[in-house]
């Protein structure tokens, strides 16, 4: 008799792993497939910032819901996940950005997110290595950082404890409208549902899916404990990261538990290659040194790149596809996939099982992008 699963999840990144854990916990028989390894895409090349965002109500709803789930899970995480509640410090370089600090402060406060407002002196006291003269900043107290590949492995282990199976090195060609998947070797695996959780590679499984690869560079330094205390993000980031066209860089630095610093960030469309590109890497580090001059004296150990799965409206795609009720989506998380993986998984399982989700699912449903998808074909 041919094997059968309730649900086959394509992609063993943080999103696929979270979906597997959640569906297996709900009693579904889960199979996870990945053409590479656990966390081989954005999961293994990103910063691992667990952050509540405020760009839109839908983005806030999913990120705050997800951060709550992370904080609930935290006591059960093994030490190598290195989940540290360092907080996010959004820094404003000028009065224009300070207006954004006030907007964010109001937005978060009204929604019960713990925040602290800083003036220029307060920012400097919190992070003495920032250049003098910052206008101010906002500290989001309960944000944190973690090490995503170990988090993905942990979630898959949890799924396995609930009978899930994980097969690596298995390439999927297509998700089937009648359920299950067609593999590159021509064989089929039947299942009630299939889920495209292939991140930046998800359009290769679902033709016309409006997910674009958005390349990023990161640098990691040697160990300098105490050099920074928070994940620090410039508010100029809001101006640059939102541009859908030009290549952009932003100051974004993160303390690791080891004392190392992760230094970012860059965003590029139409750059499919994995190679480190010196011009944008230089711009990125230049930006970091503008905010934190001492960074220039630290030694970097390694630079690398990854690709984020970006959608046109900056929201992930979660739920049943428009083509078939047996093909589901959990992709398009761009730069927030670590944070939103847990919320995505809970939402997906709720929708599959007909449970009432804790947050409205509509903003993330694939159907919202259907019109755009037909244009892409």
């Amino acid at each position, binding site marked *: 008799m041919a094997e059968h699963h309730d649900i086959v999840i394509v992609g063993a990144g943080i999103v696929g792993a979270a979906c597997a854990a959640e569906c297996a916990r709900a009693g579904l028989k889960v199979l996870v497939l990945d053409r590479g390894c656990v966390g081989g895409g954005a999961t293994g090349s990103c910063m691992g910032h667990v952050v509540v965002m405020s760009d839109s109500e839908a983005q806030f709803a999913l990120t705050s819901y997800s951060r709550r789930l992370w904080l609930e899970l935290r006591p059960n995480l093994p030490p190598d996940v290195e989940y540290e509640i360092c907080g996010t410090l959004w820094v404003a370089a000028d009065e224009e950005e300070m207006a954004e600090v006030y907007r964010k402060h109001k937005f978060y406060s009204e929604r019960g997110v713990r925040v602290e407002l800083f003036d220029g002196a307060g920012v400097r006291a919190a992070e003495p290595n920032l250049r003098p003269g910052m206008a101010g900043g906002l500290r989001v107290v309960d944000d944190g950082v973690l090490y995503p590949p170990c988090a993905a492995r942990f979630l898959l282990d949890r799924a396995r404890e609930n009978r899930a199976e994980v097969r690596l090195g298995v390439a999927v060609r297509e998700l089937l409208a009648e359920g299950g998947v067609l593999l590159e070797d021509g064989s089929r695996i039947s299942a009630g549902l299939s889920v495209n959780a292939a991140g930046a590679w998800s359009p290769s499984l679902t033709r016309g899916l409006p997910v674009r690869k958005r390349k990023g560079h990161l640098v990691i330094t*040697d*160990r*300098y404990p105490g050099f920074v205390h928070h994940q620090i993000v410039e508010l100029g980031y809001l101006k640059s990261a939102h541009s859908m066209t030009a290549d952009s860089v932003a100051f974004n630095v993160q303390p690791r538990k*080891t004392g190392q610093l992760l230094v970012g960030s860059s965003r590029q469309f139409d750059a499919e290659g994995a190679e480190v590109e010196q011009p944008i890497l230089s711009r990125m580090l230049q930006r970091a040194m503008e905010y934190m001059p001492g960074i220039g*004296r*630290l*030694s970097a150990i390694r630079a690398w790149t990854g690709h984020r799965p970006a959608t046109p409206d900056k929201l992930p795609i979660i739920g049943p596809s428009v083509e078939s009720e047996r093909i589901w989506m959990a992709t398009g998380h761009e730069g927030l996939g670590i944070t939103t993986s847990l919320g995505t998984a809970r939402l997906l399982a709720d929708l599959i099982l007909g449970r009432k989700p804790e947050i409205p699912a509509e903003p993330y449903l694939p159907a919202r992008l259907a019109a755009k998808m037909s244009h892409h074909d």
Partner: protein
Amino acid sequence: MTEASAKNLLALCLDTMETEQIHIRVNGRPVTVAAGTLLAVAIAQAGETSFRHSVRNESRGPLCGMGVCNECRVTVNGQLHIRSCLTPCEEGMDVRTQ
């Protein structure tokens, strides 16, 4: 160049080296070396064999001598992770093994 003038040149060089002395401190102890001496040499001269400790607290010291292995890292004037095998001594340096 005659043999005599070559000798004079060598003597001149030696004189220069002898006259230009650099004073540094290694773990608080004063060390005097000739100008141009690399930090790794000065630290060894100060009697230190452990330049740094690994993440698992093992002693480490210079291995490659050319900036590749990173085992000779020390703290110089408060700055962590300076490769002593690539760094010439400078007057007044405060050097700490890690």
